[in-house]
């Protein structure tokens, strides 16, 4: 990845193929989320809390693989899912700097940069394209979502509804894996804490995270399918 500040001088002619932008997520098993997208994303992915290695702080994230560097939704060309987290939809664009200093950057090495791509950044008339306006809106939601997300995480910790999950899994080929470092909403603890959580919307997000743990089963099925495909590949005549 190589980030450059987006400018009209350097980048007005670029065209983007958004479907290919997620290639940089092909080896990512956790995608960070902001609070206001958790309910939507939890329809497809298990949503856990993970810890930032630098700060030790918890952040919500969608689980896409069962070991580091694995993304079971990557099919070789795109992320095969009905809903996508904002942090994938915004690719290949990033926000650099903070507050008033914040600028939009682009990964100049992204495979999504394609002269034949369907989406220009700037229209023939010289205005920002609808595509780019939607990217700006996504980046805006990510920036503005940071503080409410921190607040939500603090609320979960304060009400002691978070507990560590260790995913100890077995697959059809006999292999096993142990994934640690994940923290989820504990249903029993949430039941105890519900009267103290004043905002119903917060409670619903926590409930959605709690229920989303069932999607781990879908990840296991995807892993089994991958293993079966690999086994076929190595079976002569198959």
């Amino acid at each position, binding site marked *: 990845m190589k980030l450059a500040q987006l400018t009209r001088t350097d980048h007005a002619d670029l065209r983007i193929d958004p479907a290919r932008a997620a290639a940089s997520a092909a080896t990512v098993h956790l995608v960070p989320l902001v609070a206001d997208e958790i309910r939507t994303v939890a329809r497809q992915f298990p949503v856990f809390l993970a*810890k*930032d*290695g*630098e*700060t*030790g*702080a*918890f952040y919500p994230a969608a689980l896409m693989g069962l070991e580091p560097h694995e993304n079971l939704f990557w099919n070789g060309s795109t992320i095969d899912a009905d809903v996508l987290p904002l942090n994938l939809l915004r690719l290949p664009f990033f926000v650099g700097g903070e507050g008033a200093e914040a600028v939009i950057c682009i990964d100049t090495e992204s495979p999504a940069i394609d002269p034949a791509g369907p989406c220009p950044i700037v229209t023939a008339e010289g205005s920002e394209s609808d595509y780019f306006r939607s990217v700006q809106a996504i980046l805006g939601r990510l920036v503005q979502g940071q503080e409410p997300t921190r607040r939500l995480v603090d609320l979960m*910790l304060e009400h002691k509804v*978070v*507990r*560590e999950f260790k995913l100890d899994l077995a697959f059809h080929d006999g292999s096993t894996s142990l994934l640690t*470092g994940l*923290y989820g909403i504990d249903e029993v603890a949430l039941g105890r804490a519900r009267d103290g959580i004043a905002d119903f919307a917060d409670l619903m997000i926590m409930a959605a995270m709690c229920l989303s743990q069932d999607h781990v089963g879908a990840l296991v099925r995807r892993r089994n399918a991958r293993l079966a495909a690999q086994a076929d590949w190595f079976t002569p005549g198959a």
Partner: protein
Amino acid sequence: MSGTSPRAIRSVCIVGGGSAGWLTAGLIAARHGRDLAVTLVESVSRGTIGVGEGTWPTMRNTLRKIGLAETDFMRACHASFKQGAKFARWRTGAADDFYYHPLVLPEGFPDLDLAPYWNSAEQGSGNGGPSFSDAVCFQEYLCEQGLAPKLMTSPDYAGIANYAYHLDAVKLGELLAAHCTGKLGVNHIDDEIVGVSRRDDGDIAAVIGRDSGAIAADLFVDCTGFSSRLLGEALDVPFIDRSDVLFIDRALAVQLPVEEDSPIASHTISTAQKHGWIWDIGLPTRRGIGYVYSSRHAGADRAEEELAAYVGPGFAKLNPREIPIRSGHRAQFWKNNVVAVGLAAGFLEPLEASALVLIELSADYIATSMPATRQAMDFVARRFNSMTRYRWDRIIEFLKLHYVLSERSDTAFWRDNRDPATIPQDLQDQLELWRDTPPGEHDFASAHEMFPAASYQYVLYGMGFRTRPRAGQLAQRDMADDAFARTAAMKRKLGQMMPTNRALLDKLAQHRFPPL
């Protein structure tokens, strides 16, 4: 049973602040809530000794029980991580002579005992192999590399390697005082105690404050420091001098400011000198350095010279503070309705950081065994006395062990320390036993042991003591080889993974350890 109605214990008065007073107040108040009225009376202007700067890993659980977050504690007390002690120049006195007493047990211990295998390899190599502490445990490597025992993502009070703290004891007292009064409902009175009033049965009915008059309570905790105002003075419990075993009776202490970004040792450094030893404790803001010595063997001038040589050029600008040490303890620790905690109970040289841990153990016992009635108190007191006396005796033996094994004979201090008349008989008997069998759990069968068998192994083999390997002890050779290999692998792995002690402490100024 007599016909008198039971006298309920409803109030506790702790006399004296400092680490002892406030840890006791915190543990009692956190456990008993508002069921028990807890008052701490101290003369704030009197100040505290505040040189106890090293803890045991037990402090993590103590602070958790009191209800403090680790990040808040570490910031407020300028604390750093401690992964054990490095003993330099204790064995031969040579510049490269050192060993470690780490806080992580030998790999596989106690199910697997690596000591016979290491002793057997030593015999084969003519004492040229790796040291015991480095061969059986990865923690010495972390210390030598200046690495921390945990990560920024490690939860409160949990680590990758076992750890304790170095801290500013004065700040610890202040933090606990604010927490105890603000959160735990402890009543704080700033007053000078000028006397006590007694009941007919000998109990203390009240302590008399200069301004506040009589402060009554059902149980009094004496945290008045060396003076032992209640247990020693009012109740006449004699002091048992143990300087016949442990000769140290003076400390000369300085605090050396440190540069930002300078490395912080994650272990206590204890360097033997001609007439005692120097402690060196690194905090993010300063190094606490002190020479504890025997004034029977050296005058103050000689001691200051040795301390100056250790500290280096910065010494001229510092004001060394002299602290008298009286090695020993009270004959009883709980009498009538008075129990002593901290220096009021006794003191020993800080060689194995026993001061704060004895405070924690005593305060925890008082909190958990708090009798509901005065009638039940004498039995609780008897138990406390026998348990606490056992602990002091074990600590004294373990401290003496460091001296009796030394090969130094450069001064009378070191030669006198090996005089059998100064060595407790139990220790002499055990040393005889350990010539053929390594220290094991069978040697330490009490529920109130202070140092596990592993600690004895670290000190014994670090000091050059050898146990003759016997064939029967070498039957698990493959398991032992695996354990030595695991230790080596842990060093490689953690060497890559762990931040430096300084880097983690700097991060902790901006970020918090997660609660889980």
